C-alpha cells in the first residue's frame, strides 16, 4: 500500500524518508514527522480499535493526548506497552503495533455481541446484575468482566529499559510551546530569566504547526530561544502535575521515538521542576458533541482533521461533513477542501456567523440551524443524518466518510486546577477557565479561553513578561508577534442531540448521555458520584474531550446550570505516564542503598552467606565444604567461641561521640541508669527508655576522657538514637554544653571472643597490660593494634572472655588479618550473625526480638537498672500501672524437654493444662552448643514463678506443639565467671 491518502506536499513530513511499520501484522509505510495515527490514516486504515465495554468499532478520533479510541499495544516482547495512544506515538522504522481489546480480528470481534446486550449493560450494570450467587463475584463474574472489558496486555516481563529522575530549577517554567508558550518563553528569556519551556509534542509550535503562513514566526521564535543560554526547550516532555510550592512533575520521553533507547540513555526521564513562576500555556482540547452514533470510525474532532491535513499531509476522508457550533472549527473545512476532500455539508445549529458566510462564499453547503442526529455505517462511516435543531425524526441523509465535530474548546485547566486555582465558568465560551491563582502561576492563551494564534501569542508574551518581572527581572524588549485572523470560538450551547442510538459523552469508557441521566436517577447526581457510577472521564483520556459534555447532560437532568455541576477534581497525572518513569533508577540495587562495613571484602573472600540487617550487609555464617548444612556452620562457629576463640565484625553498631562539660549529666538523663559515676577507662551497659517508658535501646558506653564518651547503640537503632540525642539536646536541654558526632563510619570494630581471646589479642595488640587485674571486664583503653591506633574494650555479648577492638575503618582489614594470624595457633574462627545470635540467646542477652518497642525494663529483667535518684527520659511514664503490672509477661529462658524437638520464634506459650490461652511467646530460638537441644528466650506471664515448670510452645501455623521447660534466661555461665576470667 502506498499511502493513498497522503498529500503530495505540505506539512512537517519528510517524504524523502520512508519508515516501515506494521499494524495488526500488516505492513505499511509512513514518514518522519508522522504519528502512528497519521501514518495509519495515510494508509487508509480507519478501524483501529474496539470500545471498552460494547466492543464497538472505533477509529482515530483526535490528534493528541485526548485520544479515547486509538489505543494500541506498542512494540513486542518485554517492551510491549499497552494502551499507548496512536495519536502521540512518533513513527519510527520497524514500529510494531497491535490493536487491543478484541477477540478474533479487529474487523470481526465476536465480543461485539456485547452490543446486542447493551440495554442490560448500562452504567453500574455489574453492581446490579451479578449479585447472585454472591460467591460467584470474585471467581466468575469479575474475571469474566475483566477479560471482556478492557485495555491492552502488559508484557508481564521485566522492563529492559532504564529510567532516571532529574531535577531542574528555573525562574519561569512555561508549559506548552504553542504560540502563547513560545511567546511567553521568549519574553521571559529576553528579560534574563532562567526559563524552561516544556512541550509534550516532539515539535514545538502547537497550532502553529497547522499554519504554513506562520512557520517563519515559529522558526524565528525557536531560533531566538536557542540563542538564549538560560532558556531550555524540552520537547517530548509532559508536565503531569502541579504540586505545592512551585514544584511540578514532568516526564521527558528521551527514547520513545526510537526503536529502543541508545546505549547509556534512559527511555524516559522524570523531572522534578522547581519554578519560581509558572506560565501555563497548555492550550485547549476540542469538545465532542453527544449525538447518536458519534463514535463511528470516521467521526473525528474537527481540529484533528485539520491537523492531519496541514501538519501531517494526510487527508482523513474524501467526503467530509463538518458539524460545528462555533466559527473556530470552520478552518477544518477549508483545510480539508485544500487537501482535496469534498465538503459535503456544514451543519451548524446557529443561524449565521462570519465563518458561515465565508463557508457559503467558498461554495460549501451550509446547513444553518441544523444538527447531526445520526451516523450510518459500521466499521467505517458511510453517511450522516442531519435535521433541524430539535426536530424529531431521522433527518436528511448525506453520504460522507468523514464527520468533523466541534462543540467548542475545553481549556486545558488541569495544571492550574492542581495548583489550587479555582475554576471559573465562562458563559460566553461555555467552559471553565482558571480563576485567581493560589500559587505563583498564570495561564495564557487557549487554556484561559484566549483563542486565535495572534491573541494567544500576545497573551503569552504578556504572561511571560509578567512572570519574569514577578521573578525579579526587568521588563524585556518586545518582539514581533504573529498576525493572523481570529475566529470566534464562542459556541452555541448544543451539548447533546437526542435521538435513537447511543450518544457517547465518553468514548473510551463507553459512557453515554443516557448513562449520565441514569446516574442522576439512581441518586448519583453529584459530578464526583456520577463519575464513579458511570466511569465517565475515568479512562486514559480523563474526559479531555467529553468530560464537560457529560457534566452538561447531568446538569440538564438536575435542572441546574453546568457551572453549578462543575467538573470532577483534576489530579495528577494530566496524561498517562509510564510507571517506570516514576520508579526512575530506584529499582534493583538502587531501590535502597546497601551499606557495607570496611570488612566487606574480607567476608566475601571467606565465602560469607549474607544477611540483610536493615540496609547493612552482614555475614550470616561462613560455610565450609565439610559443613553438612547451614546449622553445621553456625554450630561450628559458636562452638569455636565457646571452646577456643572466634572473631566477628561488629562495625555496624551505632557509635556516637558525646563530649563536653555536661556530657555526664546529659547521659544520666538519656540513660535509665547512671553514667556520671563511671571512671575514665571503663565501659558500662546502658539502657535507654523512650519517653513513654518502653525500652528504646541498649549498648555499652565508655568514658574515654573526663568529658568524652563513646556511646554505642544497636545496629537497628543507630539512626533513631542519634536523632533522639540531638532532639533532646536541641529542644529539651539547650543549656547543656554537649557536642554529638556520629562516628559509626569512622570506626570499624572487631569482636574477639572465647577462652583464648586474651592470648590472641596479646598477639597483635600493643600498649596494654592485658592481665585481668590491669584490664578487667568492662575496661577500655587506647592501644596500638598491628601498628595502627586502636581502642580496646573488654566487653562481651557472647558470654565468653571477649574484647572488642575499634580502629579507624581504613585499617580494619589490616587489623582483622593480624588478628587471624595471631589466632591461627589458637584455632580462631570467624563467626557470623547466626552464631552471634545463638551465643547471646544462651547467655540471655536481649536483642531486637526482645527490644521490640513493647517491653519495659522490668519485662526484660532489667528493672533494677533504673536509677532511683534523678530524672531520666521515660522515668515518669514507666510508672504507669499498665507498665508496672506484675502480671506482664517477663523474660524467661526456655529449653525443649525433648532435645530433638525444634522450636520457633513466634510460637505461643501455653500451660500444659490451660487449653488455648496464650501465656506468652517465644521471642528468639536457636539450637544450643552448651547442651544439646533447642533453647529460646521468651516473654511469659508470671515467668519467674513458673521457673522450672513446663509449658507448651504451640505453633499452629506449622502444626507444632513442643514441651518446654521454663529456665533462667541466663542459660550459660549465669555467674559471669567466664566473661571475668
Amino acid at each position, binding site marked *: 500500500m502506498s499511502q493513498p491518502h497522503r498529500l503530495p506536499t505540505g506539512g512537517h513530513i519528510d517524504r524523502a524518508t520512508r519508515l516501515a511499520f506494521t499494524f495488526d501484522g500488516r505492513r505499511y509505510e509512513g514518514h518522519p514527522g508522522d504519528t502512528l495515527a497519521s501514518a495509519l490514516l495515510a494508509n487508509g486504515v480507519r478501524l483501529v480499535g474496539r470500545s471498552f465495554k460494547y466492543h464497538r468499532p472505533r477509529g482515530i478520533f483526535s490528534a493528541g493526548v485526548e485520544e479515547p479510541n486509538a489505543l494500541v499495544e506498542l512494540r513486542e516482547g518485554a517492551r510491549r506497552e499497552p494502551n499507548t495512544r496512536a495519536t502521540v506515538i512518533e513513527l519510527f522504522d520497524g514500529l510494531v503495533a497491535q490493536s487491543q481489546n478484541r477477540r478474533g480480528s479487529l474487523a470481526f470481534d465476536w465480543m461485539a455481541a456485547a452490543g446486542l446486550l447493551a440495554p442490560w449493560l448500562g452504567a453500574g450494570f455489574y453492581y446490579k446484575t451479578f449479585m447472585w450467587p454472591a460467591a460467584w463475584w470474585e471467581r466468575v463474574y469479575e474475571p469474566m468482566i475483566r477479560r471482556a472489558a478492557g485495555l491492552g496486555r502488559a508484557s508481564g516481563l521485566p522492563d529492559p529499559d*532504564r529510567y*532516571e*529522575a*532529574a*531535577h*531542574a*530549577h528555573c525562574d519561569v517554567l512555561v508549559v506548552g510551546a504553542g504560540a502563547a508558550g513560545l511567546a511567553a518563553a521568549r519574553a521571559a528569556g529576553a528579560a534574563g530569566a*532562567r526559563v524552561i519551556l516544556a512541550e509534550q509534542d516532539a515539535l514545538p509550535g502547537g497550532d502553529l504547526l497547522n499554519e504554513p503562513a506562520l512557520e517563519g514566526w515559529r522558526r524565528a521564535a525557536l531560533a531566538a530561544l536557542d540563542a538564549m543560554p538560560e532558556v531550555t526547550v524540552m520537547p517530548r516532555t509532559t508536565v503531569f502535575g502541579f504540586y505545592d510550592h512551585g514544584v511540578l512533575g514532568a516526564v521527558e520521553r528521551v527514547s520513545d521515538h526510537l526503536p529502543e533507547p541508545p*546505549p*547509556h*540513555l*534512559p527511555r524516559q526521564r522524570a523531572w*522534578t521542576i*522547581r519554578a519560581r513562576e509558572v506560565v501555563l500555556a497548555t492550550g485547549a482540547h476540542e469538545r465532542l458533541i453527544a449525538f447518536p452514533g458519534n463514535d463511528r470510525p470516521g467521526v473525528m474532532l474537527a481540529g484533528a482533521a485539520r491537523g492531519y491535513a496541514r501538519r501531517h499531509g494526510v487527508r482523513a476522508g474524501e467526503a467530509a461533513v463538518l458539524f460545528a457550533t462555533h466559527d473556530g472549527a470552520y478552518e477544518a473545512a477549508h483545510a480539508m477542501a485544500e487537501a482535496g476532500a469534498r465538503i459535503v455539508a456544514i451543519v451548524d445549529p446557529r443561524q449565521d456567523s462570519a465563518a458561515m458566510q465565508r463557508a457559503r462564499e467558498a461554495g460549501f453547503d451550509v446547513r444553518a440551524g441544523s444538527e447531526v442526529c445520526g451516523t450510518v455505517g459500521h466499521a467505517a462511516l458511510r453517511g450522516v443524518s442531519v435535521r433541524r435543531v430539535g426536530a424529531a425524526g431521522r433527518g436528511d441523509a448525506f453520504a460522507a466518510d468523514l464527520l468533523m465535530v466541534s462543540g467548542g474548546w475545553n481549556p486545558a485547566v488541569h495544571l492550574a486546577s492542581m495548583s489550587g486555582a479555582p475554576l471559573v465558568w465562562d458563559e460566553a465560551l461555555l467552559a471553565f477557565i482558571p480563576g485567581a491563582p493560589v500559587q505563583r502561576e498564570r495561564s495564557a492563551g487557549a487554556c484561559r479561553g484566549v483563542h486565535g494564534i495572534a491573541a494567544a501569542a500576545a497573551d503569552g508574551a504578556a504572561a511571560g513578561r509578567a512572570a519574569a518581572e514577578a521573578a525579579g527581572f526587568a521588563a524585556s524588549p518586545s518582539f514581533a508577534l504573529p498576525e493572523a485572523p481570529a475566529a470566534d470560538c464562542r459556541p452555541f450551547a448544543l451539548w447533546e442531540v437526542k435521538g435513537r442510538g447511543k450518544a457517547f459523552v465518553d468514548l473510551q469508557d463507553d459512557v453515554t448521555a443516557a448513562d449520565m441521566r441514569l446516574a442522576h436517577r439512581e441518586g448519583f447526581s453529584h459530578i464526583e458520584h456520577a463519575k464513579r457510577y458511570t466511569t465517565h472521564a475515568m479512562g486514559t483520556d480523563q474526559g479531555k474531550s467529553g468530560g464537560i459534555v457529560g457534566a452538561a447532560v447531568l446538569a440538564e437532568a438536575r435542572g441546574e446550570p453546568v457551572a453549578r455541576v462543575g467538573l470532577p477534581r483534576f489530579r495528577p497525572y494530566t496524561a498517562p505516564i509510564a510507571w517506570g518513569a516514576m520508579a526512575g*533508577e530506584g529499582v534493583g*540495587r*538502587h531501590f*535502597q*542503598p*546497601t*551499606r*557495607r*562495613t*570496611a570488612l*566487606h*571484602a574480607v567476608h566475601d573472600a571467606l565465602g560469607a552467606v549474607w544477611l540483610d540487617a536493615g540496609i547493612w550487609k552482614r555475614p550470616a555464617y561462613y560455610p565450609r565444604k565439610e559443613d553438612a548444612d547451614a546449622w553445621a556452620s553456625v554450630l561450628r562457629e559458636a562452638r569455636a567461641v565457646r571452646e577456643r576463640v572466634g572473631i566477628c565484625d561488629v*562495625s555496624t553498631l551505632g557509635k556516637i*561521640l558525646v*563530649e*563536653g*562539660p555536661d556530657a555526664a549529666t546529659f547521659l544520666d538523663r538519656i540513660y535509665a541508669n547512671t553514667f556520671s559515676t563511671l571512671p575514665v577507662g571503663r565501659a558500662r551497659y546502658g539502657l535507654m527508655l523512650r519517653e513513654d517508658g518502653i525500652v528504646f535501646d541498649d549498648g555499652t558506653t565508655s568514658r574515654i576522657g573526663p568529658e*568524652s564518651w563513646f556511646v554505642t547503640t544497636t545496629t537497628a537503632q543507630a539512626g533513631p538514637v542519634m536523632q533522639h540525642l540531638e532532639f533532646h539536646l536541641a529542644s529539651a536541654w539547650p*543549656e*547543656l*554544653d554537649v*557536642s*554529638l*558526632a*556520629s*562516628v*559509626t*563510619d*569512622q*570506626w*570499624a570494630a572487631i569482636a574477639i571472643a572465647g577462652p583464648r581471646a586474651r592470648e590472641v589479642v596479646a598477639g597483635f595488640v600493643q600498649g596494654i597490660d592485658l592481665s585481668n587485674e590491669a584490664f578487667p571486664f568492662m575496661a577500655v583503653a587506647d592501644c596500638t593494634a*598491628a*601498628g*595502627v*591506633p586502636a581502642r580496646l574494650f573488654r566487653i562481651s555479648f557472647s558470654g565468653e572472655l571477649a574484647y572488642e577492638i575499634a580502629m*579507624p*575503618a*581504613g*585499617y*580494619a*582489614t*589490616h587489623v582483622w588479618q*593480624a588478628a587471624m594470624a595471631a589466632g591461627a595457633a589458637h584455632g580462631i574462627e570467624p563467626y557470623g550473625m547466626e552464631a552471634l545470635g545463638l551465643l547471646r540467646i544462651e547467655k540471655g542477652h536481649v536483642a531486637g526480638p526482645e527490644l521490640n518497642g513493647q517491653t519495659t525494663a522490668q519485662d526484660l529483667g532489667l528493672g533494677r537498672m533504673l536509677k532511683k535518684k534523678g530524672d531520666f527520659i521515660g522515668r515518669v511514664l514507666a510508672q504507669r500501672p499498665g507498665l508496672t503490672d506484675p502480671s506482664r509477661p517477663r523474660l524467661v529462658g526456655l529449653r525443649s524437654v525433648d532435645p530433638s524437638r525444634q522450636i520457633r520464634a513466634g510460637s505461643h506459650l501455653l500451660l500444659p493444662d490451660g487449653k488455648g490461652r496464650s501465656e506468652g511467646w517465644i521471642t528468639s530460638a536457636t539450637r544450643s552448643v552448651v547442651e544439646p537441644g533447642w533453647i529460646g528466650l521468651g516473654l511469659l506471664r508470671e515467668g519467674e514463678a513458673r521457673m522450672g515448670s513446663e509449658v507448651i510452645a504451640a505453633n499452629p501455623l506449622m502444626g507444632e506443639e513442643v514441651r518446654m521447660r521454663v529456665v533462667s534466661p541466663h542459660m550459660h555461665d549465669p555467674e559471669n565467671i567466664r566473661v571475668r576470667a
Partner: protein
Amino acid sequence: MSAPEPTHPLAACATPGRHGAPGDAPLRVTLPRRDMVQVMARRGREDALAEAARAAFGLALPPAGQAAAAPDATAVWIQPGHWLFAAPRGMEGALAARAAAAFAGLAAVADQSHGRTTIAVSGPAARRVLARGCRLDLHPRAFGPGRAAATQIAHVGCLIHQTDEAPVFELTVFATLAEPFFHWLMEAGAQDGVLIE
C-alpha cells in the same frame, strides 16, 4: 610493625579510566585523599573558636551554606556550630590532633578521616549529572565556588562543596555508603561518559 596505608572505601569499585558513553567532555571523577575532622563548638564559644581557627588554620569559620579555604585546609559549615575541616592526607590522626590542640576548651573534635570520603566531580557535564540525583540548584546564579550544602543524593546523605567555577564539586559521603553512592554516580554519568582519574 608500621601502619599501612588505609584502604579507600571505594577501592573495590572505582576503576580508573573511561566508563559509559564515549565523548569529548566526560564527567571527570577524582578521589582526593583527605583527612577530615568534625569541629563542634562549645556553647557560647563560637567567637573564640573563630579566632582560634584563624590563628591555627588561617581561615575564617564560614557561615551557614559556605566553606572557607586556606592553603592547607578547608572548613565547611555542616550544621549550627559544626564545621568539617579537611586537609590533604597526612599522618594518621595528625589533623585531629592539630585541631584538638588548637581548639582545646573551645570545641569538641571528632576525627572523620575514615568515616567520610570525598569524590570530586568536574567538567561541563558535572551539573547535568548531579541534577539526576541532587535536588539543589547548582546553577551559577544559585550556587558557586565557596558554597556548600548538605543534601541527599540517591538516598545517601551528601555534603556538596563547590571548589571551583570550572565547575568542581566535592561530594563528601559516609564511608560505608560510598559504594552505592558511587554506583549511582557512575550510572547517572554514563550517558555523558565518566573519566575516573
